[in-house]
């Protein structure tokens, strides 16, 4: 409905909305309300832009904007296509919800250095949108690094001994992976392919045919393990360590923005740099599928053993992320759609779970699952949302998770990978094993010995519960009406 030139500027505005908010937030540090207003304004503008672009992308055209031509053959450029749109919509919408939740959480616990917190929050969202809209591997790498750096102060927010250890591990893995593996891979790809721009379709990648198979394999696995944010097994150790951060950080970033960026980059590289045909020809897809399924299974088993609620959610994230990579690795159209839609479903479900963990902590200062006995009756809304989100994680019918699991299973069948189907079923069993007891104990269990439960309903403040319920509702809604996001995913297919 707007003129085409508006759509040229829209991605830039979306990108820079939170960037522009950064100085404003920093200045209005002394007046919290004004500061929060800036965050909301930026979040609103960003979502509006992304939403407008969504309409335009649905109409079938791709927006290309070149910011700076950095090298004769390379430029920092934005490109809005349906693949990027899925992730952009999710992260910009969830930023609004997370912003409200964060304000409630920070005010509730009167955290120090809130201004720095909000500044880094805005910066990391700008980086997330940058990754979503990047047109070539260089731009994506730039925003990937920016995300790592801007989330460091968030992870190290408490500035105590645990924060120190967690932040150090966080940076070691992320920077080690990106500078150590992705940078050389990117440069060698540039050396052999002559360009880093993503291919148009997902079939033919940009790697020229003549390159030696060993080089392609090395490059592929450098990218796979280089993007350490995707939490694939050997490079996942930073994620549980980063749970030291305050809950809003672990909610938005480690359930949605940071990890999704990792998975998004990995899938972007797999589809648009290597391309399905090359992966099929060298059977890279199958190898990745097996690696990733190892992650799914072991992460779920570890999650079983964790009594701390956030640690269990962290390991569940590690295994759920690998679903997305598994979907794409299977290379069959249905599996790819399943993988991509899981980005959306997992985002909404996991953010609800982390919000619940935060709300429980604010209300009752309880962290471990064993202490949650009988709390369901005291905090019905929180635990209701928790139950809905758990269903989505497990993949039960009415909720979003079922859609992606369904597509994954059909895709695995098309690809004729019986072993993968076994892995999917086994992991579903494991999901049930580590989510169901939490819900059951909360509603029907007895409180731990010697502690009497307060009578009546005593929830966390409304400003925290509202986002929880909203997120759970959306998670339910995209389960019932998946077409909302599936139309984008379907456009990715050739």
């Amino acid at each position, binding site marked *: 409905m707007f003129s085409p030139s508006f759509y040229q500027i829209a991605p830039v505005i979306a990108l820079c909305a939170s960037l522009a908010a950064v100085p404003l937030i920093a200045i209005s540090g002394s007046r919290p309300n004004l500061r929060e207003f800036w965050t909301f304004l930026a979040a609103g503008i960003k979502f509006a832009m992304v939403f407008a672009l969504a309409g335009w992308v649905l109409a079938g055209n791709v927006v290309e904007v070149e910011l700076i031509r950095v090298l004769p053959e390379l430029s920092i450029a934005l490109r809005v296509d349906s693949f990027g749109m899925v992730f952009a919509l999710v992260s910009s919408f969830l930023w609004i919800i997370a912003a409200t939740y964060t304000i409630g959480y920070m005010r509730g616990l009167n955290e120090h250095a809130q201004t720095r917190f909000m500044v880094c929050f805005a910066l990391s969202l700008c980086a997330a949108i940058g990754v979503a809209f990047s047109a070539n591997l260089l731009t994506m790498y730039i925003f990937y690094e920016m995300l790592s750096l801007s989330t460091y102060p968030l992870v190290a927010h408490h*500035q105590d001994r645990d924060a120190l250890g967690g932040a150090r591990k966080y940076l070691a893995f992320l920077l080690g992976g990106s500078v150590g593996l992705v940078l050389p891979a990117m440069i060698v790809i540039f050396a052999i392919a002559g360009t880093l721009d993503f291919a148009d379709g997902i079939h033919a990648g940009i790697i020229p045919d003549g390159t030696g198979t060993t080089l392609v394999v090395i490059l592929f696995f450098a990218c796979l393990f280089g993007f350490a944010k995707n939490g694939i097994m050997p490079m996942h150790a930073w994620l549980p360590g980063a749970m030291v951060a305050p809950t809003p950080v672990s909610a938005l970033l480690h359930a949605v923005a940071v990890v999704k960026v990792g998975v998004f980059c990995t899938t972007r590289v797999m589809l648009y740099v290597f391309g399905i045909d090359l992966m099929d020809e060298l059977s890279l897809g199958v190898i990745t599928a097996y690696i990733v399924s190892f992650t799914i299974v072991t992460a779920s088993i570890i999650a079983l053993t964790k009594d701390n609620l956030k640690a269990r959610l962290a390991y569940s994230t590690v295994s759920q992320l690998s679903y997305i990579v598994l979907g794409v690795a299977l290379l069959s159209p249905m599996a790819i759609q399943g993988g991509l839609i899981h980005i959306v479903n997992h985002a909404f479900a996991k953010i609800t779970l982390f919000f619940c963990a935060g709300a429980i*902590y604010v209300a009752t200062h309880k962290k471990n699952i064993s202490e949650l006995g009988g709390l369901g009756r005291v905090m019905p809304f929180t635990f209701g949302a928790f139950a809905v989100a758990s269903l989505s994680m497990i993949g039960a019918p009415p909720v979003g998770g079922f859609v992606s699991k369904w597509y994954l299973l059909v895709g695995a069948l098309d690809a004729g990978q019986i072993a993968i189907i076994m892995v999917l079923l086994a992991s579903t069993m494991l999901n049930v094993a580590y989510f169901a007891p939490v819900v059951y104990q909360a509603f029907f269990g007895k409180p731990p010995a010697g502690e009497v439960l307060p009578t009546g309903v005593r929830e966390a403040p409304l400003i925290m519960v509202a986002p929880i319920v909203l997120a759970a509702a959306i998670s339910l809604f995209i389960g019932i009406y998946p077409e909302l996001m599936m139309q984008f995913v379907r456009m990715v297919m050739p």
Partner: protein
Amino acid sequence: MMIDQAPALIIIVPLFVSLVLTLAGSLGPRVAYGLLLCGMAGSLLFSLLALGQVVTDNQAIHYRMGDWPPPMGIELVIDHLSGLVLVLVSACALLTAIYSLRTAAEDNPDRLNHYYALFALLVTGLLGMTASGDVFNLYVLLEISALSSYGLLARGRGPAYYATFKYLIVGTIGACFYLLGIGYLYIMTGSLNMLDLAEIISRPELQDSVSIKIGFSLMILGVWIKMALFPLHAWLPNAYSKAGITTACLIAPLMTKVSVYIMLRIMFTVFSVDYIFDSIAWSQVVIYLASAAAVIGMITALAQRDLRMMLTYIVVAEIGYMTGGAWVANAAGYTGAVYHILADGLMTLCLFMAVGAVIYRTGQTSLAAMQGIFKRMPITAVVLVIGAASIIGIPPTCGFFSKFYLIQGAAQAGAWVFVAALLIASLVAAVMFFKMLEIAFFGDLKALEQEPGGGHGHGSHDGHDGHGALPAVARQEAPLSMLIPMVITAASLIILGLYTKEVVNYFIGWSIPAGF
């Protein structure tokens, strides 16, 4: 008229400033400071004019000294490469001059104008070396800049004298090897002008002459000693780290970079590409040396407790990058090496200024001085972060693009050792600077380490009154005269990074030697 005299004026203006500063002994510090600024600004203006002229009509300026035709007289040659380095040297000198208002006055309470005279003399030497087209003239200017750097470094505290003495001895060995190399070339060719030498050396009968090879290896060995390439770098760290703040800001970024420029000039102007990479088959050994320099330099820097020692070892490592880039023998490697001269000059200047500001304010030079720097000196902290990002090679800064070209060149040439070394060096640099940022962010690490056991668990903390509020640290920012150059340098790191295309297309692309 003024334009075609620009090449000579670039060098004469700082020389006259140095002489006037010595003559007028009774000048107040402010007047001496003002005079120095005018001198540096003048030479920057003329070098920009010269570079502009070179770019517009796309061929080198040959300025005949004393109106004598080249092989007889001496000529200044300003082409794309030397024009670029001239602008870099004069810009860094101007920024350091602006920076030096407070630190120079504190370092030398008396004889400030003599200190500034030596400052201007060093800049004259560096500019003269870059523009000179005559091999022997380059030796004389090499000695001038070496001598004035001995003088500036000897202004430091007690231990500086011994460090400067070692530097003097090693520097003289380097310069004399270079002179001996000129001797061998002069015997075999009879000429001293670079282009004339190149023409004679390329003649068939001299292709396999042993003396020319010995002459080349002596010259390169001498330049490597002056450049502190890895095995010969022992003198650089304690010489630069014992110096005053302003001296370190002037010498560290420029001296080694101009020596790298001289190496490039010798390799690609005096000798041709195929001569170096065919008849002198050193490139394999040199690439190993460069990789060792990069990795060992960075690892030793990581192990340092003193801030300036850390930065000087980074300089040693960066020299490894440039040498490797030049010896990888392809266009991308050469572009990476030249671009890295620019990038590294600015990066080192930015870091030395920021660390100088911290030392100026806190008086400590150990890593502990970094505690709570984000609150105390926010602007300095941001400059430090940008400098560190550039050394690590994080994208928007120019450090990333120079590594981009270097790795690309090394990959095309199949020098995987060098690629691995560059990556390891960047990783170690990342660890080093995040160690520094950790101290800055977390405050006193020692106290944190010994804190009584856990009890924090996940998520937020216990007390409701907010975390033990960190000690309210008074904001003690560096003085304005230090902040302006720091911010300009940090900004230039990013601007240079974003405008790499222009720098490569208009400057470095033209200077790529034939044969690549």
